[in-house]
């Protein structure tokens, strides 16, 4: 076991979290949980950014994370508003019931 974790560990963690998030998106039908999973995926990406910022000794990685968080916040706000709106009309947040796009 090495004396200190290096970037590879973070990559591994980030990858695992990302995959879990993706699985959440793919498997859950609850729209809210789906959104949470997306947040998780974004979070895993953020982690990697910060890790690389540290690894490369750059500040830009952190700046980017800042922006990602902003976008995520905006996205969650709009997404949740959507869910509320859909819930009002369909009385459900099961995304399998929201299939107006069905061909």
């Amino acid at each position, binding site marked *: 076991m090495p004396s200190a974790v290096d970037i590879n560990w973070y990559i591994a963690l980030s990858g695992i979290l990302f995959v879990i998030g*993706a699985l959440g*998106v*793919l*498997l*859950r*039908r609850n729209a809210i949980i*789906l959104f949470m999973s997306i947040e998780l995926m974004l979070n895993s990406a953020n982690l990697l950014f910060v890790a690389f910022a540290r690894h490369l000794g750059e500040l830009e990685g952190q700046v980017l994370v800042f922006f990602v968080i902003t976008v995520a916040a905006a996205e969650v706000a709009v997404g949740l508003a959507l869910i509320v709106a859909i819930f009002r009309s369909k009385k459900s947040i099961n*995304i*399998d019931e*929201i*299939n*107006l*796009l*069905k*061909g």
Partner: protein
Amino acid sequence: MNTFSLAPLILYLPLAGLLFNGLIGRGIVDRNRPKGERLVGWLATLMTFSAFIVSVTLFISLATNGFEAWFVPIMNWITIPAANFTVNWTLQVDTLSVTMMLVVTGVGSLIHVYAIGYMHGDPDFSRFFTYFNLFIFFMLILISGSSYLMMFVGWEGVGLCSYLLISFWWDRLDKNGIPANANAGRKAMVMNRIGDFGVLLAMFLLFWTFGTLDYKPVFDGAVELYKSGQVVQFGGVGVPIATVLSAVTVLFLLGVAGKSAQIPLYTWLPDAMAGPTPVSALIHAATMVTAGVYLLVRSNVLYEIVRDSGALLFGLISTPDLVAWVGALTAFFAGLIAFSQNDIKKVLAYSTVSQLGFMVAAAGMGAYVAAMFHLITHAFFKALLFLGSGSVIHGMEHGHHEIAHGHDGHGEDDGFDPQDMRYMGGLRHKMPTTYVVYMIGALALAGIFPLAGFWSKDEILLHGQTHALLLFLILALAALGTAFYVGRQLIMTFFGTPRHAAAEHAHESPPLMTRPLVVLAILTILGGLLNVPYLTAAQAERHEMHPQGFWLLLEQWEEHSIPAIELSEEGVVHLPHTPVVFSPVVAGLSMLLALSGLALAYLVYKGRPKTYSEPDRLARTPIWWWSILPLNTLYMKYFVPWFNRFAAWLAFKLDGEFWHDFVHDRVIRDLFVNFADFSSNVLDAQGVDGIVNGAGSVTRRLAGVLRLTQTGYARTYALAVFLGAVGLLVYFLFMAN
């Protein structure tokens, strides 16, 4: 001092008239009928007459300026710099075009005056005069243009006017409910277009040979090329100039056959009588139909080169000879057909075809001046005859009108037709003025000394006699036939006793109509003076040294447009040919033929038919049957229905059922669909419509499969995105390098 710069006026004046009448004429006439009619009619007449005045000044200017052609540019027309193609709107004022101008505007003015009376009360009075001015406009473009292309503008334009005027009463149906007038107009236009096809092709050939379509450079170039013996590079192949010109001239002949109603395209002209009578007089007798003759005369250089070169068409006949033969045969057969006509205008129509045949034959024999001479005199007397017949018809209609009102219950339809000569008879007492002038015109047409027709026809026969014996015989027979049908017509119309109540009640026409007739009659009597031939060879010799002499005035005049050209070192081809010396033998024969024709008619038709239903005396003789030449029947009974069927077949069977339904739907589409069935297993065949629809339904069915993927479930889409992302990642990591 000359007035050549005024030349464009001959176009602008009729143009102004037609614009005025076309734009506001209708309103004027509708507001105040008699006054409006007078204004519109006289304005149109004035414009034509002013053009005549301008033509006279041009004539004087030419005569005082050495007879040389003047070119009056108006504006540029088509210029394609890179193709070296330039055509301008330029007027060519030379003796030939001025002659034509004088005839067209002079006779035209008289017919305009007549038409004011004739068209009185017609609801489309202003439209009629608009067309008339339009016609004059195009006719003047035709004869004054300095290039073939400009001539062609007029050529097609007068065809258009002919179409419009023949179908002038387009709302009238004949007894069988067929819009005969409109059909006749259409027929005329289509037949003319067949001729135009030839003219167009000839122009293309001329352009690629000479690089221009202007008369003068074309003629100069033709002579030069011919003399130098150069070959013309045509489509990569060297062709002798005479061969090219052979093609050009025979194509021109096609145009002439269309426009001047020669075999095999003459059949439109008799139908064209459906138009108002002034139209028949102006367009279908005096002016438009002579455009073909004008073209031949104008292109004399080309024909003479072909004649001189001895180039034969398909190794059979040289084109000038072909022209002569076509003319002569038309003259003969059309005269024959006139025998069997009962419609007074149809007789004249076939007579026109026949007389045009004479002109064309003359041009084909190289007697261009004789052709022009006959053209002029024919314009006088045939216009006179047509207008006279219009007067007769007018009178008959009035008579019929009167009896329909006078005797109640007499209006039963006995098939009365005011144009049918069988219902006439004895009109000389009812319509004395018309009778006298008609008589003059008819005798001129028959060729009785000393009327104009005698001199011009005699000159053609004279040339025929020196040209080819068989040709001469045919023309002589045609002259005999002419006299016969003229006699028949006179007897049936003016002599004997009235065979119908309408003829009994017929009246003389108003002075507005008869006065132009009188003027034309005077011209018919004096017209022969234009080109009185030398009586003796000695005179000819003497006067050749004094070309300003009285004899052969027209010949001396036209000499400047139809010049002698030097074609080879051996000799000069003289155009016109050696001066015509009056031949008593030919003249006597011509006179004899005319008289015997009239006498024969008298023998056969004296006092006949007794009633309007009596069959014609010749109806059982072979002459009658021969005279019904089957060409028109061939076209109208066989070709036209065949074409209609063919077009319908092409449109509905070939394009619709075969191409659209069978090829696209059955073959291509089904193959496609079966293939798609096989490959996707989800297909069923239904609905048949084109390969496009095939593609459409295939797409639709494929979409049916694909839409299974479009579940509308966001997660499914997410899965797809994920799949793609992973796929890309794997690709870029492991396979891209």
